[in-house]
């Protein structure tokens, strides 16, 4: 049976509208603005001093969904950006060139660029460009990659030392002292939302899964990515958990009949999101877990902010962002998802824009098919650039894959 209740999505619309209104009004109200990246961000530190967060990745993905990304990307290419670099970056540069007029807001200029270098080198290039174009200050928060030996105490110390420097930078810009109590309060709110979101994600173990853990989860994750640390965010996840529990109890799911349970790896193609989803829906595919819904935090793996040790927990959170894990860890996590959520297959959506996500996925496919014996489909397009979405080609690949899974199922039945 298909789900009917969709209250959380309505609630989310209102919250995001308020957020984008705040962005539009920021310059007039002289609200200080900090730009941050989603993976491993340290918004708790900037929020403790009243900075309004701006997430250029979110702005870019919204442009993708609203189908204006193509023109913005071309505007950036006109000033010299290569067709071979990240579409999110070009979307954001295009926005800047077009007077920051975003479909949902007038994006304010940055007072501070907090480059949380966690899992993506392009982040550095992105904010270096914004620093040059806006003349804004950058703080580069260097977050060590999780190497083979795991996270060492010295890695955490290194990040904590920088977080304290960042707090000083924020305090200097604001002209007010940094207050630990404010940080602890915000961290506690982050924690509360994380607990609720992690519980929600685990409901996908049910049959049928009450929600699509890729195509729907990437929307449900928006508040924790954009509004983490606020009371509204906690309320949202409380409501979402309730709604999903009710769906689970009623046996409702994202597709009329759940025929295939899959794990998704990689970001979705935002400019063609619906069309891409439909290619799977017609096969009765429901995602039961995905890596992209964890880019804002591996909460399901026990990674949590902690008001009792705010600085260390922020550092650990930032280090343990999905794309900051080495490939051995990423591969083990995906295998764990396949087993825990009893998935039939892994689907990899490889995007050209994000090498941090993509490079290694083809090797992952080799490993999953030949060594782990897990049926794996890999398809390619892009998360931002509409030019890379070849629907007919994707349909052929997806149809062939699920036909073959279906055939195997019939033979073994």
């Amino acid at each position, binding site marked *: 049976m298909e789900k009917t209740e969709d209250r959380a999505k309505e609630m989310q619309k209102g919250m995001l509208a308020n957020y984008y209104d705040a962005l539009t009004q920021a310059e007039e109200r002289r609200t200080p603005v900090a730009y941050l990246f989603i993976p491993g961000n340290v918004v708790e530190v900037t929020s403790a001093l009243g900075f309004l967060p701006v997430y250029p990745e979110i702005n870019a993905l919204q442009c993708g969904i609203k189908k204006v990304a193509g023109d913005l990307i071309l505007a950036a290419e006109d000033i010299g950006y290569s067709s071979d670099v990240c579409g999110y970056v070009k979307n954001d540069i295009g926005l800047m060139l077009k007077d920051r007029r975003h479909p949902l807001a007038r994006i304010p200029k940055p007072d501070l660029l907090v480059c949380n270098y966690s899992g993506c080198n392009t982040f550095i290039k992105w904010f270096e460009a914004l620093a040059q174009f806006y003349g804004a200050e950058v703080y580069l928060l260097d977050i060590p990659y999780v190497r083979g030996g795991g996270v060492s105490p010295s890695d955490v110390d*290194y990040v904590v030392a920088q977080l304290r420097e960042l707090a000083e930078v924020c305090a200097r810009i604001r002209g007010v002292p940094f207050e630990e109590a404010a940080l602890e309060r915000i961290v506690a709110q982050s924690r509360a939302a994380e607990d609720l979101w992690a519980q929600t994600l685990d409901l996908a173990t049910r049959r049928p899964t009450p929600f699509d853990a890729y195509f729907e989860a990437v929307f449900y994750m928006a508040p924790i990515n954009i509004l983490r640390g606020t009371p509204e965010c906690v309320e949202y996840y409380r409501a979402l958990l309730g709604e999903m529990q009710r769906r689970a109890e009623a046996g409702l799911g994202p597709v009329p009949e759940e025929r295939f349970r899959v794990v998704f790896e990689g970001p979705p193609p935002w400019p063609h999101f619906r069309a891409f989803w439909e290619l799977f829906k017609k096969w009765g595919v429901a995602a039961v877990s995905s890596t992209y819904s964890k880019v804002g935090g591996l909460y399901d793996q026990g990674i949590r902010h902690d008001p009792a040790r705010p600085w260390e927990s922020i550092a650990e959170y930032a280090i343990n962002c999905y794309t900051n894990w080495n490939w051995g860890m990423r591969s083990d996590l995906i295998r764990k998802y396949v087993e825990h959520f009893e998935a039939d297959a892994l689907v990899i959506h490889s995007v050209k824009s994000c090498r*941090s996500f993509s490079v290694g996925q083809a090797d992952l496919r080799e490993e999953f098919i030949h060594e782990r014996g897990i049926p794996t489909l890999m398809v390619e397009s892009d998360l931002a650039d509409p030019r890379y979405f070849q629907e007919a080609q994707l349909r052929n690949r997806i149809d062939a894959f699920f036909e073959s899974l279906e055939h195997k199922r019939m033979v073994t039945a």
Partner: protein
Amino acid sequence: MLATPEGLYSSAEATLEDLGLSAVAAWKARTGGKAVGHFPVYAPAELLHAYGVLPVSLFGGWGKVEIDHADSRLQSFVCSITRSTLELGLTGRLGGLDGMVFSNICDVARNLSGIWARNFPSMMMEYLHLPQNIESPSAREHMIHELERLSASLSRLTGRALDEARLGESIALYNRGRAALERLAALRLAEPWRLPALEWYLLLRLGAVLPKEEHLDALAAAERLAAASDRRPRDGIRLALVGAFCEQPPLELLRVVDEAGCFVLEDDLALGQRWYASPVREDGDPLTRLAEAYLTASRPSSVRHHGRQPRQQQLLERVRALHLDGVLFATAKFCEPALYDYVLYKEVLEAADIPYLHLEYEEKMSTFEQARTTVETFVESIMFE
């Protein structure tokens, strides 16, 4: 071999084409030592040397490797050097290496470390997270930890403990190598016709595979040969070549630049060979000195964040200080660090009214006529300005 320019440079070219690393195998057979490869751009070669390990800087397949096996493990939008290096590994041609060192020069290189670890489990593999926040006081401690971790791996590989005195000697040796390159660079600035870009480049590349002691001999020979050269003084367009710090341009492209009448007087070719702008200090704890040098003496490059001294400003200052006529951007296809930086560099150059040209290359590039025409037109536009 080192007595004539022909001997020196043709043997250097042959070394470049030794994709199966037979010279490394010969060195190992001769010395009984281990060899560790590293992906460009930076690796603490001094530390490897101190363990008696031969550091081998890998530069891909040089256009001579058919990509077959690597295609199943890397997408088509990945740069040539990554694909061909993996191909060389998967076809057993890097079997002479006992280990590999990767670092966070870009996302592709970083992720290649994971592919490497899975496909070559018996090889020592270390990944260095090089500090990007060089202005933070905590970066020094972090860099020391990274070097200590690599040191521990090398210790396991060689069965030796770190000998600090030997590390000090290795630092001094590599300082001598960099000083020799600096002398050649100064000679080129004064009389560029004596050492064209292609020959300068071959000397840099020799340092990628030769033991440093032998590289020093080659550099000394090059210095003698350049000083004694009877090449006639001539005029040329004075250029910086920027963007080729990791994957290297085909030799033919450098030949095109030389033949078009350019003097490349500033470049980031095989940057790892000249990583530091000033010598690594030879007093105090050598490992700490190496860590400090990375933070304070590294040359500007697209693989590092430079805090309050952006690279584009440093390039502009350099162009002015050396009285260069323009900048030639030579970037490898799909090389994100170079492609992003190109935009920022060009904005600064345009504001300063400095001419520039952008060329893109890849390993499978086989015709250079279009590049020749483009470079020649660029040269003419500067000459007749």
